[in-house]
């Protein structure tokens, strides 16, 4: 079964079996504006929760993207490196950033669910 959770740094994490797919939310891409450059973590890299592991740049500014949870990066989405605007067009679909296996699957449940994230965005 598939479940999607969200971080306060506006990343989404979709867990399917042992693999988590990570991206930035629709709200995040809208706030950033037109993306022109994406730098992704190398597959094979171990990341700590909230460690900077990707960078997105809009026309105007650079922003860090954090690992939502600790784990091991298994795949990076080269499609968004070639076409950063794909993140703007499909942030929670084809514009995913990377896949990872989690060190602690239980930590996934501590992230916000869709309702909690919607309230978090509204309150910000």
């Amino acid at each position, binding site marked *: 079964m598939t479940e999607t959770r969200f971080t306060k740094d506006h990343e989404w994490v979709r867990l399917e079996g042992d693999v988590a797919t990570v991206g930035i939310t629709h709200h995040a891409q809208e706030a950033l*504006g*037109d993306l*022109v*450059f994406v*730098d992704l973590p190398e597959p094979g890299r171990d990341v700590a929760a909230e460690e900077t592991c990707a*960078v997105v*740049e*809009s*026309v*105007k*500014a*650079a922003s860090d993207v954090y690992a939502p949870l600790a784990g091991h990066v298994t795949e990076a989405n080269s499609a968004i490196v070639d076409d950063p605007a794909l993140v703007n067009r499909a942030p929670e679909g084809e514009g995913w950033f990377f896949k990872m296996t989690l060190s602690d699957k239980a930590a996934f449940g501590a992230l916000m669910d869709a309702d909690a994230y919607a309230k978090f965005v509204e309150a910000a």
Partner: protein
Amino acid sequence: MTDDLKTTPLDALNRSLGGRMVAFAGYAMPVQYAAGIMAEHLHCRAEAGLFDVSHMGQATLSGPGAVAALEALTPTDVAGLKPGRQRYSLLLTPQGTILDDFMVARMGDEELFLVVNAGCKEADFAHIAAHLPAGTTLSRHEDRALVALQGPQAAAVFARFAPGSAGMSFMDVRDFEIAGVGRVRASRSGYTGEDGFEISIPGDTAEAFVRRLLAEAEVAPVGLGARDSLRLEAGLPLYGNDIDTTTTPVAAGLTFAINKRRKMAWDMPGGGVLRDQLDHGTPRRRVGIQPEGRAPARAGAEIIDGAGQVIGVVTSGGFGPSVNAPIAMGYIDNAHAADGTAVALLVRGKPLPARIVPMPFVSHRYAR
């Protein structure tokens, strides 16, 4: 966030157009509208963009001492400026460094019209006012809006409202009476590299007039984000980033702003310094920089040589939508400043290959 900020006469219009308002020089200004920076930038290069730049400082300097007083603060030939003509000028420190860059237009024998940067206007106007003889006065136009209409279709659009504007050349300035709007002052200039006008409008009729401009098919609103990427592509320095009180017009590559007659007398502030720099060069100078990959290098990124030595710094950098690549400008040691020189830019600790290139990145299309 924008509660304590000043607003322009176009504030309500900016918000109704989906303007994303940010603090800039003490004003709530739109960094972008609904279309976004990329689309706004490209629209300006393709058709016509309308910018609210009412935060900039407008003033009239008038009186028998106006011309001489402004010459005493700048390297500009104000005396030789013909009525209806405008020049790019610089307020200089006694060391020859730059307090601000601004536009000066001659409106009459004893009347000059000034447009200065928003972030510098209080200091600029105080500085000018402190150097005026009795009988010569500086009066600010805080009640007026200022918009820039820029792009290849700007002249055709503006001519529908001010038919006489069609015959104006780059840096001409004229007043027009427009029914329902009042007297507007238009200069054929701008800061995008495109043809176009900067138009000063009475504040109380500005919104209605700008709505009429926006109703023209070619015109779309453009925010400060695209204004920055447009001027960067055009190779134009931004005060506070690329020029300031640590840089001189010689180091900044603005020697065209040091007038020939003024170079006979060297009687501008810092004249001795500027003369020496023109003869012997400056340790560093402003250059264009083309990163070779896709990653932009932002202001503050260090420029290093092959040995890892720091040889300069990026002062403006980002993505150029029209060149579809990252672009930058910065200051670099003279030994490395030649076009084509290979350098590296330190971005997030990694050296990114780049080359020194001539500017502009996109050719100017002024109505000469």
